[in-house]
Every structure is written in structure tokens, then in C-alpha cells.
């Protein structure tokens, strides 16, 4: 039952398939809802940005639509370390000079991917008549990413394919204790889904290194998380790993306030708490190499060709602090100034993600004679940094039926040079967005926008263990189409 419910949720998230990277660092979506929404605005999308904004919503409103996101990621790996031939198996240093692959150096083939996907959103806001209260609800994906590369590409040890998303289902309430102040609170159930595939380099697993170093094999080796590049990326030890149908469930909350200290000047801030997610799903580990399936069986090393089992992937969604100031000005239209300008900033606590921990369990993993248990774990070190960003947003009503808006923004990147890879190829990011809102009827309005995010090219030469040195370049274009219906 739970499983089918989970499947349904994934379907609900539709094609929650967007290019890797987004609004900021990590795996946040480029934007939630129309780009005109933010911490200082008051509309149904405030359920996400700042539930206090609901307090300033005057009419029951439904907002729904999607952002069509088109990514364009380029990566050219550059190897700066020394490698042995991939079909060798020197497991300790120094490597026999005859096994050094001198051709495995410098720039590898350039790869690129252009994933396309849509991120749906649905919000509802309802001021409670006669009460200083408003309620709202939302279904949205603030964190979602998908990427797919060639399974044989030079990035295969980093990532081949990944789909990751967190769908928030949030009921909110806003309380407006006085005319110029609203307080808001939302509680979110978070449904996460994830799958990923990569070539797992077993040379980086401490378990294997320790098992080989113990009797009966008794070979001191250079394997482990700190393995030198010279013993990495060997064909025998490069085993395809697939984690699929990972499902996670979590809860979090957000809270905020919006104040209007003087007419048309809004000051707002919100806080979104962390959410711990542990994705549980199935995994397969392709061990179909004679080295693992038969050649050392007399020493107790014998895996089935395909190891199957259950696995978990755990990390914590970051806390987010948003704050901003918005000022409405200009000749009024329909009783309100026709223009406004907002300056909004954000802090995202990506440092909560130190690594992606994958823990796999299967009886097939057990190698009792080598002291290997039926479980294994590996982590993808991230050591992300907190990010800071800001946007300047402008909007202008040309008529009572038509409004234009736009923004310019900047955000720092979460990935340090040491861990950046195609799974998180972010950096300094510039955002440009423009859009329009056209009233279609008395109650309905169509909001269209385009959001272009450009991550400044990064030339990386300090990647840990030479895993992901090279040049990264990414651009994301998001085309939004949302409908707003005022009851």
C-alpha cells in the first residue's frame, strides 16, 4: 500500500525532471512557481517562500502551473594525476612504471547533456473572512534534479544518471495580529524520491581494502577513501552501481513574518527548517568480473555476478533563511501602485550536507572468510558550503490587465573545488528573469516567464584525488507557465 502510494507521489511530481542544479547550489529547483514570487510578495506561493505572505492575500487564490526547465551542462575532464592502465591491477604504491598509462593524462573528451523536464507547482491561499487569519496549502518541489550522461563517459565514476526530488506538501496558516504585520507558519510533509547510477570504484572502499589486507589474502594495499589516483579507475574494480526507487519521508516547517512599517514598504523574512531524508530503495551492484566471481574463490572472495539488495541514501535538506524588502510605487492602478521593486536575499545552509551516504545491504555482499559483512557503505563526499544569494525584482503594471516583471540575481556556489563534479557542478550563478502576467478574465490570470541562470565557468584543478578536475559550464533556462485564479 505504502509502495503504491509512493509511486503515486512520484507520478504526482509529474515530470519532476529538471537539469541538475538550480536556483542556487545543491539540488534546489531553479525556482518555485513564477519568478515574480518571493519572500516579500503576497500570493499563494507564499506557502513556500514565506507563509506570513498569506496574511496579505486579499482573495482566495489558486496558483498552479509548471516550469519547463532546460539544462545545458558541459564538462571536460582533465586528468592531472598519474594513472596505471585501467586493465592492470597494481594495488599498492608505487606502481610499476611499466603499468603507468602515460596516455591517461590531460584533457579527456568533452561531454555535455541537455536534460529537459517540468517542475509542477500548485498553491492555494484562503483568507478567512472576518478573521485575522489566512490559510494556504501547496504542493511543490523546491529540490529536484536530474541528469544523465554516457555510461562510458569520463564522468562515469562520478555519476551516470541521477534523479532526485523532494516534494513538499505544506499546509500553512498566517495570522495578522495588526494591520501592518503578519506572521506565518507552515508544516511540510516531504516526500523524497531518488535513483542514481554510477560506476563505483571499489578501490575507494575501505571495507575492501581492509579485507584484502587481512588474512587470508593479506595484501597491504592503497585502497580506501583516500586511495591515490594511481590505483583508482581500474576496470576490474569499477563496478556499475544502480540505486533505484528510493523513497524517503520527512517533515519540516517554515515560518516567517511580513511587515508593512510604512505604506507600500514591505519587510519580510522567513525560515525553513532542515529535513532529514533517508531514501530507501533497491540496489544492484554488477560484480560480473572473474576476479570477484571465481578467480579468488579459494580465498573466500566470490560474489554473484549481480548483487541485489536494499540500500539507503541519506542526507539532510538545508535550512533556508530568506529576507527582503519590497517597495511599491508609482501611479496606482486598481487601487495599488503600478510598480514595485524588491531586494531579497537568501542564506541556504548547504553545509548540512557533508556527504551522500549510501548504505547497501544484501546477503550477496557477505564474504565471511574475508570478514566482509552483508552490508557495505560508501559516501560521496560533498562538503558543501552555505550559500548566499540575492535578487532584485521589478514589476510594472502597464494596465490593469497586464503586468511585466523581471529580476536579476546572484548566488554563491555550494560545491568546493575539492568535491565539485558533474553531480553538483555549481558555482557563481547569475540569474536573469523576465515575465508577464495577463488577465484572461475577471478571475483568471496567466503568468508566463523565462528564467536564465548562468553558472560561471569553473576550471577546477584541485579536485580530491583528481576525480573531477576539468572545466564545468552550465546554463539553465526555465520557461514558466502558471495560471492564477482568484475566487
Amino acid at each position, binding site marked *: 500500500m505504502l509502495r503504491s502510494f509512493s509511486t503515486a507521489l512520484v507520478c504526482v511530481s509529474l515530470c519532476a525532471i529538471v537539469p541538475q542544479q538550480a536556483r542556487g547550489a545543491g539540488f534546489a529547483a531553479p525556482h518555485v512557481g513564477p519568478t515574480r514570487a518571493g519572500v516579500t510578495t503576497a500570493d499563494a506561493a507564499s506557502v513556500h517562500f514565506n507563509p506570513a505572505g498569506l496574511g496579505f492575500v486579499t482573495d482566495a487564490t489558486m496558483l498552479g502551473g509548471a516550469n519547463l526547465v532546460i539544462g545545458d551542462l558541459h564538462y571536460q575532464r582533465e586528468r592531472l594525476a598519474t594513472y596505471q592502465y585501467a*586493465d592492470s*591491477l597494481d594495488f599498492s604504491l608505487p606502481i610499476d612504471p611499466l603499468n603507468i598509462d602515460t596516455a591517461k593524462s590531460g584533457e579527456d573528451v568533452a561531454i555535455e547533456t541537455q536534460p529537459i523536464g517540468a517542475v509542477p507547482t500548485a498553491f492555494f491561499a484562503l483568507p478567512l473572512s472576518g478573521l485575522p487569519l489566512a490559510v494556504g496549502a501547496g504542493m511543490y518541489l523546491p529540490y529536484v534534479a536530474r541528469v544523465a550522461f554516457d555510461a562510458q563517459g569520463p564522468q562515469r565514476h562520478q555519476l551516470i544518471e541521477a534523479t532526485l526530488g523532494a516534494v513538499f506538501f505544506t499546509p500553512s496558516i498566517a495570522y495578522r495580529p495588526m494591520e501592518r504585520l503578519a506572521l506565518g507558519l507552515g508544516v511540510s510533509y516531504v516526500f523524497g524520491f531518488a535513483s542514481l547510477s554510477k560506476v563505483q570504484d571499489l578501490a575507494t572502499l575501505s571495507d575492501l581494502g581492509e579485507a584484502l589486507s587481512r*588474512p587470508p*589474502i593479506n*595484501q597491504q594495499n592503497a585502497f580506501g577513501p583516500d586511495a591515490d589516483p594511481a590505483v583508482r579507475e581500474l576496470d576490474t574494480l569499477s563496478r556499475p552501481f544502480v540505486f533505484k526507487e528510493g523513497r524517503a519521508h520527512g517533515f519540516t516547517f517554515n515560518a516567517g513574518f511580513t511587515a508593512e512599517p510604512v505604506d507600500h514598504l514591505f519587510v519580510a523574512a522567513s525560515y525553513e527548517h532542515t529535513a532529514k531524508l533517508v531514501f530507501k530503495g533497491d540496489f544492484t551492484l554488477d560484480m560480473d568480473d572473474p576476479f570477484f566471481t*571465481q*578467480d*579468488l*574463490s*579459494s580465498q573466500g572472495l566470490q560474489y554473484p555476478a549481480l548483487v541485489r539488495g536494499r540500500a539507503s541514501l541519506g542526507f539532510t535538506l538545508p535550512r533556508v533563511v530568506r529576507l527582503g524588502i519590497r517597495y511599491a510605487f508609482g501611479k496606482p492602478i486598481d487601487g495599488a501602485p503600478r510598480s514595485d521593486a524588491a531586494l531579497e536575499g537568501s542564506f541556504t545552509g548547504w553545509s548540512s550536507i557533508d556527504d551522500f551516504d549510501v548504505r547497501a545491504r544484501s546477503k550477496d555482499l557477505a564474504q565471511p572468510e574475508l570478514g566482509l559483512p552483508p552490508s557495505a557503505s560508501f559516501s560521496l563526499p560533498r562538503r558543501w558550503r552555505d550559500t548566499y544569494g540575492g535578487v532584485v525584482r521589478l514589476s510594472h503594471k502597464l494596465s490593469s490587465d497586464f503586468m511585466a516583471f523581471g529580476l536579476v540575481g546572484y548566488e554563491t556556489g555550494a560545491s568546493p573545488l575539492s568535491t565539485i563534479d558533474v553531480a553538483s557542478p555549481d558555482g557563481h550563478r547569475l540569474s536573469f528573469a523576465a515575465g508577464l502576467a495577463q488577465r484572461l478574465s475577471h478571475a483568471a490570470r496567466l503568468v508566463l516567464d523565462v528564467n536564465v541562470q548562468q553558472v560561471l565557468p569553473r576550471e577546477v584543478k584541485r579536485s580530491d584525488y583528481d576525480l573531477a578536475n576539468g572545466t564545468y559550464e552550465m546554463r539553465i533556462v526555465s520557461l514558466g507557465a502558471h495560471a492564477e485564479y482568484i475566487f
Partner: protein
Amino acid sequence: VVESGKLEIGDARKLELRFLRFDVTNFEKRLTREDILALPNDVRERLWLFDLDLSSGPNTPQLLDNALSAIRALDPDELPQAARNMQALMQMTPDDANLKGTVLERLIELAPLLGVAPEQVLADLFEINVEDPFLDDAIMAQVILDQVIDTHPRSRTRLGTRTRENPEGIYAVPPGKLAVTLGDVASDFASFGDRYGPYAEDGVEHPGFVVGKTLANVLTEDFALSVRANANALPYKGVDLTTGSTASVNSVRSQIEALFDFDDPNWLGIEGLVEGVPLLESLTLRIVEADRFYTGGRSPVPQGIGASDGWTLPPWTLERVLLGAAQRAFVDLESFVAYTPPGRERAIFEASVQKGWQNIVVQGGLGSPPPASYVWDLLLEVGQVRLHDGGLKEGEADVELSLRDIPLGTDTATLTERMRDNLREDPYALLDIAEQIIDTTEGAADFYYYRASPGNVPTLQGDWLFFVNQDDLDVDADGQPTRSYDYDKPGFYADEALTEKLSDKRVLDGDESHEKVRIEDDMVLYLADDDGAVFTIGIGNKPSPNRRNITVKRVR
């Protein structure tokens, strides 16, 4: 091109061969007693550890001497009659010799006339004290060793490594020694009972000298044998032509010369042996008797031996052992005894022994002295009588002596050193066990892919194909090949008729036992499998330095 299944005529299959080295040092395998007993019997029996020296000597373990001492110490009341008689015989002194029914019976009659006791006559004649045994342990032990143990066909040879020079793997064991194998040690010498029991093969018979269950207290529960090897632990990858699939060939044999680092004191670890001198907790020695009475000889020829029919007996019979022991003990005996009764000037009884030949002369018609004979002929008769004490009939005096807690005679530290030294001298002895340790053969390869060491001259460097030989065949749990080597034309050829051979047994990286051919891109080779089917091998490119693509096609 077909993807799977047996290759029929016209079928082809593309395969990728890999030459992967996993060069390990101090690759340790620890074998517990259970592990060793689980090895194929052939492997256990062929792993010779040392020869147990059974001879008597100041520097030998003296196991047999210990056994004889143990026999003397047995409580006669607890022994079967035959064993009791044997014990008595071994301890027989002039004092308790029963001369009735023997040629010496006449001495009993003479002695009162001489005024001396018959036992004194005997003692004087044999130049021993009245209470000294006729035969001491050292001589008995040596004779049993020579005539009973060394004559057992399985004592003289042992199994060992099969080599080209010795394909049967049968080696001589020096006289006076018994080979001890890993199987003996691991089984607490229980295997001795089988090996040294009754033997009857190819017209050769021996009653055996060990019966029942032998048990030694050599190993503790923690016994383990650990071996450290330095090798490429991975097999060679080849092709089973019949099935058109890849297969693995154990690479250990080809690395035996460098497999063990004898400079490493831990290359061979033997732990869990009892401290000090181990004991044979249970050992039953057996010597059978002939089924009739053999009289002593009466002739001095052959000189130093005599003419007793006892000499015609098989050497392992009791009578022959007795005869041999007595002959060996007294062959150089020179004695002269004369008795002069009180009041007489001249001796009336003169007995002389020269080189074991006794001659008794009695003066004055005092009686009938025993006829001249070798003293061992006398003892043969005396001994036979003694063996049938208690009413045993001829043929019922086979002796089985169950012994307990006999010191093996050498301490385990010495045994360990001896094992180490022997195995060091002949690392090939460990080959079978090494192949068990690194048991990597898989499938039934007809040939395999090899990359020559870079240190070779340019003409030898590069990629090779080796045709399997007898040693490459997989073995079963009993150490026997799982298939016979049925290749009519092993090797690689240039033509379908297999007339123009391209391969040879040139020396490459120490190997000179395989047909081998150096390969290059686009070569085509012909070869036959062990069913006689003929195939071509199209040599493809190298996708990486240690890989080679080939296409196998069955042509007839």
C-alpha cells in the same frame, strides 16, 4: 557468429581474453587440520614432510627402541598368550630359558653331573650374566627394522610430486626410515595402519607390521599449517574450444620457482604441535610366525650363517627375526668354558664357541652333549619353544603387541625444522597444495592467453597463446584430473590439416613445457580440441594493453 552454446561446424564466436596480474606477496593460506583432511587424499599423501629414522643410534629418535622398551614393561597378565610369549622371549635370560624340547635339553642332564646349574652353563657359553637377556633391544630393534619394516613394500617408497623426470611421483625412502606425510600428521598417524598393514599387490606379499588403529599425540586442536606465497594469484584466461567459452587455467605451477620466499622465516608456519616429544598413543605392532617348528642347523656352512631351514623363511617371520637377531648378536662370539668337577684334574666338560659355532665336548661318557651348531641355531629352537608356551600350537603364535604412549623419539621443534628444511629443498612438493591454496582452474581450457614479461628480448615480448598440457587440467576432490588429456595434436598450426606447426616449446619466462605461439593482429591459427574438432583462431586487436580480441570458429 553465435553468441552462446556449443560451437557447431561453421559457428564462430568473438571472445575477449584478459591477462590480469594480481601480484601478491606473502599470500597466506592457513590450513587447519580439518582443511588438510579435506584436501584430496592424493595431495595429502604426496606432501612428504620428513623421514622418521627408526634405527638405533645415539642421534636417532629411537622409536623402535622405545617400542621394545614398552613391550618389556607391559603387564604380562594383561597380554594375550602369544604376546606374553613374545615378551618373555625378548626378556629370556639363561636363568629362565626353558630348554626342554630343544637341542639344549641335554645340558639339563649334564649340569648336575658337572656340579653347575644349566643356566650358568648357558650364561658362560654366551658370555653373559645369568640374568641378562640373550638379545638386547638394540639388536632386536635393528633386526625388526631390517627384516620386518624395511621389507614392507610401502616402506621403501613414498609418493611425492609428479615431475617430468618422475611422472609417477614415486620416490625411494632410505632404509631404516619411514616417510611421514602431511596426511600422516594431520590424521595423527592413523594413516599408518592402512599404509603399513598387510600388503598383497603384484605377487608381492607382506603381512604388515602395524595393525589396528594407530594414534599419535602430535597435534593440538589448534594445529595449522600456513604457507605464504608470492605469485600472480589469478589464473590465465583461455578458451574451451568445445563450448566456445572462456575458461581459467591455474597459473601457480608456472610460478613455482619463485612462489616461496625462503628468506622469509614465515614462509612456512607450523603451529599447534604438542610441546616436547610427542607420543604414539596407540600402536599395535605385528609379527607373524611360520606355521611349523624350524630346527636349528647343524652345519657350519654357510660360514657365519648355518644350515637351518629357518633361513629360508620370509624375513618378516618371527622365526627368521629370532634367527637373525641371534645371529647378529653372536656372530662374533668367542668363548671357551670348561668345568672340572672337584677332585679331578682335567675338565670333563669343555665348550668352545668360535665365531658363533659352538662345540661341546664331554669327557668320560658323562652323557650326550648337544651337537655342534651355531649358537643362533640353539636360540632359534629355544625361542620357538618359548613362543608356544601356554599350549599355543604352531601357527597360533602371531604376535600383536598393543603399545601405549611410546615417545616418538624426536621433539616437535626438531620435526618442524626437518619439515621446513625438506620443503625448502623441494618446493615442488608444495606444488599440489599451492594449487589447492590458489585453486583457480575453471572450465576446460584448451589454450590460454599469456603476456611475456617485459624483460624478455624483443622477439619474445608481446602476446602469446599457450596450449594446455597435462598439468593444466583441473582436478577433482581426490586430486585426480577431471578429464583425460586426449589431444592428438596439441599445439597451433598454420593449416586445417594440422600439418604445419607454428608453435613450439621454446623457453619463455621459465616455461618449456607448453606449446606456445606468439600472436599478432590478424593472424589465423588452427588447432584441435580434445574431441578432435578443428578450429581457427582469428587474432583480433588489443582493446587495451592486457586484452586481446579473438574469434574462434569451428571448421571441422
